[in-house]
């Protein structure tokens, strides 16, 4: 399968910044760097699995040299290891980094000597649907890769950039925009965009979608499910919609069919995490996922720590290849995934056939309104050193807040958190606080930060 067979249908138009030159376009430096990476990615995807691993190893060695020399957490682990002669067996003998360690050893995982060419270093926090929020560092380089892979996903799915894109997600302001925003609009001439915060009641979201009438919709998987179900119930179609793009959660098995029934379109799903970037993107020809091997190394390990084969499910373990501010080596994300057989599309990128990640319930307010619950890590961390939390909706008016912490929350802390929760949830629920020794995983392998028993 050659790239052109999939790409001939779309003609993304690159923005030109040189007067008199419209095509081929000369873009800004930022655009050039994105295109330069996309050009490389376009070729790399067709390398064989062995060739990809060889190139990953070359990049990994650069990262390990840096980590061994500058990152306290890895100084010991890598001491005495001949990085130049490192093979996969030695790499896989390195200890795993758990999410709890990442949470507790933030400082020891940071490099105090990031080369200046990696650009500005910034700190982020997971927005927290796992109940175990983590802080992390990123650089301009990791952001560039994030942007390039966002664009790869658009290109794989052959989206028409002249269409309208609607996004219902966290961390967005409600509004209408002249283009799709970053990074697509840096590179391509795009149609308009519209955004809505995912905390909006689902009924109102659907009304908004009818008004906006987009070509593409991007939102969280469970929110997409709720929208599609409501759309069927209310008999509403979205006539211009060409595709729905889901992210951040594992798909319920019936999601694709529900979306097809509701709007007659397909779902394209992506698998990412804030601390490591894109992990896997849906294959342009199948429902399964291709690991973004140019961005990170993904191991899927069984309980004994051995690599899983096709058809087997194991823990997702990541090694970011380009984050020199906070290298994550063999980081156990907390998700489970099933390894897939090599893909007949011809890409050598490894295949994940299923992701058993987090899946969210919608929160239900006493008046029946529903929305996708979001509890950013900052909300908890600003108040108290909470390590883990989970909210369980017991009935339409009451939520049990389970948490793991070295001590009990104080009254003032509880009051502040209740205030913050009321703001996030759109209603002042009665909160029942429950400090636990530890929180157990649910049936979906994954620790959920919100569970509804309704």
């Amino acid at each position: 399968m050659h790239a052109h067979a999939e790409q001939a249908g779309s003609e993304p138009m690159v923005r030109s910044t040189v007067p008199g030159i419209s095509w081929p376009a000369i873009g800004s430096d930022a655009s050039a760097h994105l295109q330069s990476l996309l050009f490389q990615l376009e070729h790399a995807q067709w390398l064989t699995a062995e060739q990809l691993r060889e190139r990953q190893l070359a990049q990994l060695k650069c990262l390990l040299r840096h980590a061994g020399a500058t990152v306290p957490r890895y100084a010991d682990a890598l001491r005495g290891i001949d990085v130049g002669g490192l093979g996969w067996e030695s790499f896989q003998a390195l200890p795993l980094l758990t999410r709890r360690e990442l949470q507790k050893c933030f400082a020891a995982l940071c490099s105090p000597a990031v080369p200046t060419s990696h650009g500005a270093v910034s700190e982020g926090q997971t927005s927290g649907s796992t109940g175990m929020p983590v802080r992390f560092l990123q650089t301009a380089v990791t952001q560039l890769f994030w942007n390039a892979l966002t664009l790869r996903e658009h290109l794989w799915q052959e989206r028409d950039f002249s269409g309208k894109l609607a996004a219902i997600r966290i961390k967005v302001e409600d509004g209408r925009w002249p283009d799709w925003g970053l990074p697509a609009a840096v590179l391509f001439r795009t149609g308009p965009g519209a955004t809505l915060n995912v905390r909006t009641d689902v009924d109102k979201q659907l009304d908004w979608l009818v008004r906006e009438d987009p070509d593409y919709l991007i939102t969280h998987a469970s929110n997409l499910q709720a929208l599609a179900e409501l759309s069927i119930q209310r008999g509403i179609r979205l006539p211009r919609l060409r595709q729905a793009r889901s992210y951040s959660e594992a798909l319920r098995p019936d999601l694709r069919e529900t979306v097809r029934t509701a709007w007659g379109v397909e779902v394209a799903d992506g698998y990412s995490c804030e601390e490591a970037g894109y992990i896997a993107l849906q294959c342009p020809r199948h429902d399964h996922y291709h690991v973004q091997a140019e961005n990170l190394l993904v191991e899927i390990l069984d309980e004994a720590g051995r690599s899983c084969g096709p058809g087997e499910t194991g823990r997702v373990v990541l090694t970011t290849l380009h984050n020199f501010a906070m290298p994550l080596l063999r980081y156990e994300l907390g998700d489970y995934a099933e390894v897939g057989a090599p893909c007949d599309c011809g890409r050598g990128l490894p295949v994940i056939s299923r992701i058993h990640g987090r899946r969210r319930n919608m929160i239900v307010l006493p008046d029946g309104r529903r929305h996708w619950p979001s509890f950013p890590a900052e909300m908890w961390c600003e108040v108290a050193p909470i390590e883990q939390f989970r909210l369980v909706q017991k009935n339409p008016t009451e939520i049990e807040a389970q948490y793991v912490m070295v001590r009990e929350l104080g009254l003032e802390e509880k009051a502040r958190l209740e205030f913050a929760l009321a703001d996030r949830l759109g209603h002042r629920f009665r909160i029942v606080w429950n400090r636990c020794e530890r929180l157990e995983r649910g049936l979906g392998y994954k620790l959920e930060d919100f569970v509804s028993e309704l």
Partner: protein
Amino acid sequence: MNAVGGIDSAAGSGLRTAVEGIVWPAILPDAGAHLLAVNFQLEHSQWWPHEVMQRHQLAQLRLLLKHALEAVPHYQHPAYREWLQRADEEAWAAFAGLPPLNRRQAQEAGESLFATKIPPHHGAVSEDETSGSTGVPLRYRSTALAGFFWNAIALREHFWHRRDFSLRHAFIRSRPEAALGPTWGAPSNLVFACGEAANLQISRPVPDKRAWLEVLDPHYLMTTPSTLRALAESALADPLPLTRLREVRTVGETVTEAVREIVHRAWGVGLVDIYSLSECGLIALQCPVSGYFHVQSEWAVVEVLDAFGAPARPGGIGRIVVTPLHNFAMPLVRYETGDFAEVGEACSCGRGLATLKRILGRHRNRLVAPNGDIFWPNLSSLPWGELVPALHRFQLLQRKDYSLVLRYECERTLTREEERHLDEALLAHLRCTLPLDFERVATLPPSEAGKLEDFITEIQEAGE
């Protein structure tokens, strides 16, 4: 797609990086990133169907013409203004009605073809003249931006043929000599930090070239077809083992099938040709699949016109007329290059870029019979080594009175017997009965570009 080479040279580690510790995928310095950025676009556009390509060309052509009307004295003519007002549906038909600009007209137009102002960000303007194998050279101007596109397409040519930039490249060109250096030079060295290359002056005698190549033992060799033919003939007479050689590349002269064959016999490798003109840039590149030439439609509108000025059909031969789309220092609209080509069918590779099956050379390489018949003599296909082993090099010239003279380099004058042999063979090959004289010369003078054409005519055509 997964053979090592091209962008994946040196197993993915050959790219230049601007960020310490990031080798794969690489983050290039700005200049290299921009070159890859254009190649990212070219990678997509090469598969577009003809109509889509034309739509994009038209948008760029309008910008070029708008600029020409605003800033280039030569184009202050109502025809161009009227063309700009045409609707898209009729623009191409109307474009074919714009006056062609032949080489002589371009020479006469002189500075009136130069833009009096250039939009920002097109970079510095440089001035040069064509190498002029015959006739008066043409002075031309181009912008740094046009040079950038030349480089981008030069890279595309490398990528198409999946060259491994970590290997060694020999150049025998008319450039200054250069000892073995750490890269292939621009534009490759803006993107890749690997490989080695050296250049030998094309004017050096064959024994020097042989000795140099033997020591260098390159993986790739680029030179002119006539130099290549001389080397291959020499290698067949006295083996020149270039065991690492993967491909030879040619530029600057017309390549015949005979040159391809002799190269294959000498070293067992293929030949990849580039069709370019210094005043117009890279016009057509050889397809890696079919061997046809793909017109570089993202850079120039290329027409092949028959004797009546209509587009030649596949299999037909016509004049190559070029409109480079991005050189705002000296817009050339429907510039008659003086070269001829045979139009090809749609290419089996799937690329939508139009094809030229053969590039036949310039008007001066056409033999004209007294009855007006025209054809391109393929002299290199004759068994020269068997006919006259003593002959070093030759050039067949057609005089204004249609007669022919074979000028040759040889250690002695040819015998009557040898002349008779050649006379018979040549006239049989040319299928004509023109008078043929022989003239021994000390050295056949190559053009300034180091070209030696095996056939030239003195019969002038308007515009040459």
